[in-house]
């Protein structure tokens, strides 16, 4: 019912900056779609156009069956969490959260109950009477979140709603938001920079890059079959290793000379890019790939080995209980985990 459809939607800001190239896609009803992409790629712009806060330069936007290009934000029945919170400075936390409900004519007791419920979930119960200016950054962000979730909209729009929370709270929130959204069956668009958030919450991920859509797919598709080197290196931390190589009769050789195990590039003779995720390869004296470790980075649960393969930068992630030292070693590569992309446009082969 509340699916969101963009048909050649484009956004050019008055100063001439094209924030979104003409794009066409559908966000299915009831799904949670995560938007990811580098800073400034157009995520907020897209969300704000869906919300009706930004004029659509070209194209057609529908929510449900309605074309909403000319519909007021208030009549789109959406709830939104703004990247900068946009709290009402003159209202208390409770009033901020209840305002959208009050406007829908809900009675006071019911509003209070809803606000209480949301504020418990967001650990804001002690702050209900404070003004936004008396809250910490994370608390403000949670109020913004609360304002959205108390509502029962057709569509949720979340613009980096958890960016100012600590990992633990964020973890909790993420799970609760996901559960809430599932329970209500409300379509949602969610902007985040957190890969874990993207991977765990999304039914579908849209990867944006400089105003264009690089890939749309389930988290698994995006992670396992990145459509481009951009997606491949953007999703995953540490990012996928990308190596220049050449294909000849299906076999793939790196620029520095080594053959890549488990790689077949039939019909693509010529320069090529090879992608291997740091966690898809591991030190193994019996491995096929020679690796030269320069430094080791400790990340707590794991350890990153940074070095070179055939003279090209390469990283390997190892569990922290595996011993590792610098110097030369051999690597094994997981079969089926080698990604091939064309050399110039970086599209998946």
């Amino acid at each position, binding site marked *: 019912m509340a699916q969101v459809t963009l048909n050649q939607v484009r956004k050019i800001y008055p100063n001439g900056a094209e924030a979104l190239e003409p794009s066409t896609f559908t966000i299915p009803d009831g799904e949670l779609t995560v938007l990811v992409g580098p800073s400034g790629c157009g995520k907020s712009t897209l969300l704000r156009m869906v919300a009706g*806060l930004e004029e659509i330069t070209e194209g057609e936007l529908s929510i449900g069956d309605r074309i909403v290009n000319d519909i007021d934000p*208030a009549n789109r029945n959406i709830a939104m969490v*703004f990247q900068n919170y946009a709290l009402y*400075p003159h209202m208390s936390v409770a009033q901020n959260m209840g*305002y*959208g409900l009050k*406007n829908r004519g809900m009675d006071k007791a019911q509003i209070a109950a809803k606000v209480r419920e949301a504020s418990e979930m967001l650990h804001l119960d002690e702050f209900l009477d404070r003004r936004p*200016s008396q809250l910490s950054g994370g608390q403000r962000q949670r109020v913004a979140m609360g304002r959205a979730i108390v509502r029962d909209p057709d569509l949720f729009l979340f613009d980096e709603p958890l960016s100012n929370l600590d990992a633990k709270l964020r973890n909790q929130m993420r799970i609760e938001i996901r559960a809430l959204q599932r329970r209500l069956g409300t379509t949602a668009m969610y902007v985040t920079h957190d890969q874990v958030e993207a991977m765990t919450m999304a039914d579908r991920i849209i990867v944006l890059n400089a105003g264009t859509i690089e890939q749309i797919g389930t988290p698994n598709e995006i992670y396992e079959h990145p459509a481009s080197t951009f997606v491949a290196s953007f999703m995953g931390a540490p990012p996928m290793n990308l190596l220049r190589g050449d294909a000849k009769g299906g076999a793939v050789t790196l620029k520095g000379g080594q053959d890549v195990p488990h790689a077949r590039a039939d019909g693509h003779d010529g320069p090529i890019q090879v992608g291997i995720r740091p966690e898809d390869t591991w030190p193994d004296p019996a491995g096929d790939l020679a690796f030269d470790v320069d430094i080791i980075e400790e990340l707590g649960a794991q350890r990153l080995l940074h070095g070179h393969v055939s003279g090209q930068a390469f990283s390997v992630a190892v569990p922290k209980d595996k011993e590792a030292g610098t110097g030369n070693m051999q690597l094994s590569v997981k079969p089926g985990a080698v990604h091939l992309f064309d050399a110039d446009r970086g599209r998946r082969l």
Partner: protein
Amino acid sequence: MKRAAFGHISFPILLLLPQLVIIAIFFYWPAGYALQSSFYLEDPFGFGSTFVGMDNYTRLASSSSYMDAAWFTLIFTSLVTFFALAIALLLAVKADKVIRGARTYRTLLMWVYAIAPPVAGLIGVMLFDQSRGNITQLLGMMGIEYRLGVNYWDTASAMITVSIWKQIPVNFIFFLSGLQAIPQSVREAAMIDNRSGTRRFWDITFPLLAPTGFFLLIINITYSLFDTFGIVDTIVKGQPGNNPMTLVYRVFVDGFRGQDLGGSSAQSVVLMVLVLILTIVQFRFLERRIHYT
């Protein structure tokens, strides 16, 4: 005061100094003088004066015409303040909202403010004039007999109308600039939260406009009380007669025109005290509800 206020001492004093010096010389001195002379009866040329204690005040309390003027002032001030603010606010909100023609509307609506008060007064009396007034004629066509200068309330309505008309642009300009200062993002959030533009206005815009509104409220009250005397004067053509008049016009009539320095000083003092009470009340009860940042 801001939380992150500067801690200097001498610099802010330096900043305040010009203002304080000017008001000390041109306000407190004359005001003190008014207070003093309200206890005297004085020959205007300064040749003789008699201390009369509270006489000048008790006389006012027992004067029915003074009380009439006080009542009229109350009604006049309430109506002028209310309508001048309400109409200007309506126009400012609309002018802030429309995209097409915004500039033109703004210019046109500010324009009237440029009219000199004597001219505004003259326009007013000429429009409402008994024999050649365009509005009088219009009303006559509608079967309404309108007699400026003869009928108390006919005169009053002209005073009120012209005073409102004259003040709308001022309020409009300040409301508009106040609206411009409201953060866009908060308005956007409200746009999503609330379908009704009217409610949005009262719930979000209006409270955030409150600092400007409060300023304007006080300014408009003082305008209606004080600055309208020119309009009153023009409309009654310098002769109050049986027409309504405001308290400050009486001060002017008795003091500036009639040279009753003691009597008019007492009236000034009464006015000052009234307005002082009024504003203290406003500051105590209204400003508390204003949210600044």
